[in-house]
């Protein structure tokens, strides 16, 4: 069973690695950030699989923290590309 979990984790790691091509290619900043966010979601999935392999409950805490902070980083990105660096994309002007 652990073999299958390792294989799944390997597959997700490989697919997130391939998606970094989008981070390199762009063309917009949003595209590059999306590649990073995909690694974030993939990382959470890999951590859940590693939890199945290792069995330590602390690994799930890392997954929880990763999900929370990936969201935080995305909000930071959206703020940084707004016109004055501190705005909300929903505000007009």
């Amino acid at each position, binding site marked *: *069973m652990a073999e*299958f*979990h390792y294989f*799944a984790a390997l*597959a*997700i790691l490989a*697919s*997130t690695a*391939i*998606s970094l*091509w*989008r981070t390199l290619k*762009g*063309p*917009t*900043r*949003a*595209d590059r*950030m*999306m*590649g990073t*966010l*995909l690694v974030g*979601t*993939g990382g*959470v*999935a890999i951590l*859940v*699989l590693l*939890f*199945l392999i290792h069995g330590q*409950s602390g690994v*799930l805490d890392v*997954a*929880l923290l990763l*999900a*929370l902070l*990936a*969201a935080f980083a*995305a*909000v930071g*990105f*959206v703020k940084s*590309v*707004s*016109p004055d660096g501190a705005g909300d*994309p*929903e505000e007009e002007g």
Partner: protein
Amino acid sequence: MMAAYASAVLIALGLIFFLAGTLGLLRFPDAHSRLHALTKADNLGLGFIVAGAAVQAGDVWTVLKLLLIWILALIASTTVAQLIARSAAPRNIGGEGGGG
């Protein structure tokens, strides 16, 4: 036993969605359609993997924590999708001519 097989099937389904998400991110024509691939396909894949893990979990607290992780990822992804989509709208696409 049953739980192991069910878990394996769920994790395999999750893998398929993850691969689909990566494919979408690489092949879709523009930023907004890529957002669909990122936030929908990947979170569904994560949900299947969490379900596969929950089936094999030992106690109810682990299942609850796994569910919490998935719900958090869902809420974060939906919100981030909306925010990035609006910030990448044609009037300020976020890309630069010369740098960035």
